[in-house]
């Protein structure tokens, strides 16, 4: 019975190419639009010039804005959005629960709390030296890991996490971290601490080229590690016992995924604050559009997360020029209704 149907990997390649195309389009739009107007022709000239093709149809100040402010911002959006997407997918796979996302289970607020503690007690306000630039996201990662570990411990028994307990545990841990964040921010009077809205609603405006290498190492590489675990996540989807029986070293895989996801979220939060709902919505959309197979869900979530965060940031930058809406507002406005819809559907599929 030989059929010439496209093989699974071919179909996936097409899907990923389509997503990449969409991402490219969103990035170009983000480059051209913003508080500082740069016409498309000038934008292209600047870009060509930057990669060596000589072109003079632009002003130097435009070039500086595009290359020094906007381009790193778009790259940061891409990396952080992608990281949040894939970390969300990994956490959902690990907890075997499609309602899980980093914000819900306390990774984000734990990371924010430790980031703030680091700024207040360790780095004394500066965040620009090499040590503090590296120490901050790593410390935030520790915070995120501790918090997600606590939620995990609270909510799982016999390797299965009951949804209700999971959400309750997440609420408890979130409340705790949130209270501590408020406390520290209240007493520490430090402009480098940034405001409460920075941490709780996110803010991409601080992007610059010197942040990009840290983002690449602390988010890019862990994302690739997660990509390798697609098969294991597929097996885990049936249950930890079943995965063990199918040959997956369950404990090791769980610990690895937990650490790597916490690192991605921790680094992201320490750089741009908490951006909610991306880790929840993106894997779902990918599963809805394509399939639940992690071999497409993981890379798809990365690309889709990059698209979503870029698009949300674009809206945030355009909607109240010259000020900027915090990006978390946009992602929440889109994400919360989707979450509600998910809950209805979740009930239907379970019963």
């Amino acid at each position, binding site marked *: 019975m030989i059929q010439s149907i496209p093989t699974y990997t071919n179909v996936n390649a097409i899907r990923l190419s389509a997503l990449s195309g969409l991402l490219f389009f969103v990035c170009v739009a983000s480059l051209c639009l913003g508080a500082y107007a740069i016409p498309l022709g000038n934008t292209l000239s600047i870009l060509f010039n930057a990669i060596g093709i000589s072109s003079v149809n632009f002003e130097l100040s435009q070039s500086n804005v595009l290359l020094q402010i906007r381009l790193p911002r778009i790259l940061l959006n891409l990396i952080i959005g992608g990281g949040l997407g894939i970390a969300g997918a990994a956490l959902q796979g690990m907890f075997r629960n499609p309602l899980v996302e980093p914000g819900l289970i306390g990774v984000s607020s734990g990371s924010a709390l430790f980031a703030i503690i680091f700024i207040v007690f360790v780095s004394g306000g500066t965040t620009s030296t090499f040590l503090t630039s590296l120490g901050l996201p790593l410390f935030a990662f520790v915070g995120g890991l501790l918090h997600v570990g606590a939620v995990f411990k609270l909510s799982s028994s016999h390797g299965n996490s009951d949804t209700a307990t999971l959400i309750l545990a997440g609420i408890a841990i979130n409340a705790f971290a949130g209270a501590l964040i408020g406390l520290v921010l209240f007493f520490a009077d430090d402009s480098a601490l940034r405001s409460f809205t920075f941490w709780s609603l996110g803010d991409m405006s601080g992007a610059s080229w010197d942040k990009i290498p840290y983002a690449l190492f602390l988010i890019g590489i862990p994302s690739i590690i997660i990509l390798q675990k697609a098969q294991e996540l597929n097996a885990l*989807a*049936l249950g930890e*016992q079943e995965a063990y029986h*199918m*040959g997956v070293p369950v404990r090791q895989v769980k610990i690895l995924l937990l650490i790597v996801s916490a690192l991605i979220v921790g680094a992201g939060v320490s750089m741009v604050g908490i951006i909610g709902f991306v880790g929840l919505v993106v894997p779902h959309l990918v599963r809805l559009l394509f399939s639940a197979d992690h071999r497409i869900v993981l890379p798809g979530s990365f690309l889709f997360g990059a698209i979503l965060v870029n698009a949300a940031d674009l809206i945030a930058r355009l909607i109240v020029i010259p000020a900027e809406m915090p990006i978390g507002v946009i992602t929440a406005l889109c994400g919360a209704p989707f979450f509600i819809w998910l809950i209805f559907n979740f009930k239907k599929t379970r019963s």
Partner: protein
Amino acid sequence: MLLAKDIHHCIGKRPIVDQISLEVQPGEILAILGPNGAGKSTLFKLLSGEVVCKRGMVSYNQSEVGDLKASELARIRAVLPQHSQVNFPFTAREVVTLGLHQVIASRHQAILEEVMQMTQIGKFADKLYHQLSGGEQQRVQLSRVLVQIWEHQPYPRYLLLDEPTSSLDIAQQHAVLRIIKKLTTRNIGVVIILHELNLAAQYADKIALLKNGILKKWGSVPEIMDEQLLEMVFDHPVQLIPYAACAAGCFVASAAITTTAHQYINHA
């Protein structure tokens, strides 16, 4: 050969599995039977390698289960637990493909086709798993564990099933057991926990009777088909009705107790 020698497992001071020894040869179906609380599940977990026994030894093809890595063990034995929850919108085919985790990619297509043919799930292979009926889901899960050990290898493989028929109707029960029976020609040994004595009698080669963690008897089906033995193990009178047409030669019946003369005291 799947060998269990003097395996023993306690929770606290209470033995759940008390020094049990048995063997399963490839091509043989061993049914494990016993009342609730007899320790069947624990024995099952000890055999599958999920739980490590405090004393005694479980080995597959002469390798102790503790010495084998999860991936190596997965190539030798597959396990179908009683309930499996699938929380993501996988299609039936995708669920089956999960079992191919340890199998090289080039063989996937062929194995999938053969197994899906045998379990007759081709019709709904591309439907979402959670949209299927209980019986269909069970066949999908069965296919999944089959693809794991389907390929002929130079060594025997084993399939362990925990009550695969518990939520199925009569036709479905027999369908599943017929499939399992066919495995015996592929150098696969089967261990199956069953609740129904009749099904065990008709499909198994050997039966192990458990009660309170102790292996009361392990033998071939005719040896086990003994009224007094079964009454003792199950604490309820049973009658064996001769029925030549079925494999065991008899049909096991249990009736509601109506007279005081048939009151039996629980043996310790």
